[in-house]
């Protein structure tokens, strides 16, 4: 897959939508890979017995797995070296089998520190239309 080619600052308007990513259903295998890949070994994400002991019906996705999807959305729009900030609130749990759509839109344009910056609202939404992550990002454009 090729690296993103950045849009131009002047061509961007507030309200512009990024092309959404619709992801495959979250699987137990993906959570196992993310456990190893992220170094977050909290058993609650991979060990059903442990999750039940702490009152959950099943294992559930690492918040940071979904935040990585926000990162994918932003770096599919601009090259990573132009990303200045990424943040999110984790607003509901992502369960095994959930189908997550990652979407974003332009919320502001400004200049700061000698750079032209674009602010984005980015979020993850599950198959029921519920937001699981509500985040924001800032990118620098030429």
């Amino acid at each position, binding site marked *: 897959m090729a690296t993103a080619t950045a849009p131009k600052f002047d061509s961007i308007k507030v309200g512009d939508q990024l092309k959404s990513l619709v992801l495959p259903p979250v699987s137990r295998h993906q959570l196992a*890979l993310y456990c190893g890949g992220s170094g977050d070994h909290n058993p609650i994400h991979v060990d059903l017995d442990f999750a039940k002991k702490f009152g959950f019906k099943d294992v559930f996705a690492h918040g940071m797995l979904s935040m990585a999807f926000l990162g994918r959305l932003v770096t599919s729009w601009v090259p990573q070296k132009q990303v200045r900030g990424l943040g999110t609130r984790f607003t509901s749990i992502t369960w095994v089998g959930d189908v997550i759509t990652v979407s974003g839109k332009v919320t502001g344009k400004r200049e700061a520190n000698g750079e032209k910056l674009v602010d984005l609202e980015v979020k993850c939404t599950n198959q029921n239309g519920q937001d699981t992550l509500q985040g924001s990002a800032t990118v620098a454009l030429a």
Partner: protein
Amino acid sequence: MQLDKKLIGHTFKPFTTTVEAGKIRLFCKAIGEEDSIYTDEAAAKAAGYRGITAPPTFLRALQADDPNKGGLLRLLNVDIGLILHGEQHFEYFAPVVVGDEVTCQEKVVDIYDKKGGALWFVVQEMEMKDKAGKLLAKGKGVTVVRNPDAAKK
């Protein structure tokens, strides 16, 4: 369960870790990221990076290289099964690439509760610097602790 607000201001011991290609490769496999700048040095350099690049949220995986990992839970005396991730924010000042030696330091900047103590929130800030001491990134995370005593009521 009650968390000790005196722990606000606690600073964890900094640690230094080296960014590894294999870890980034596995991380990308887990998140479904296929851009070659994360796996192929030539592609990364052709795209204007110093080397294979750490994806934006991989910084949290670097934090997990802490040899004293789990320090927050030990400090708070909280079981890992009770925590949830409430928020995470990063500010990026320079790309982090394979081979970089980065030094991370975290501190507790706030502790508060909601819902009459049923949920506790611990806010931590993180700074990541390169070998020369230049700031690469800042992070801020909120850990939510579910109060097991509240669940019993």
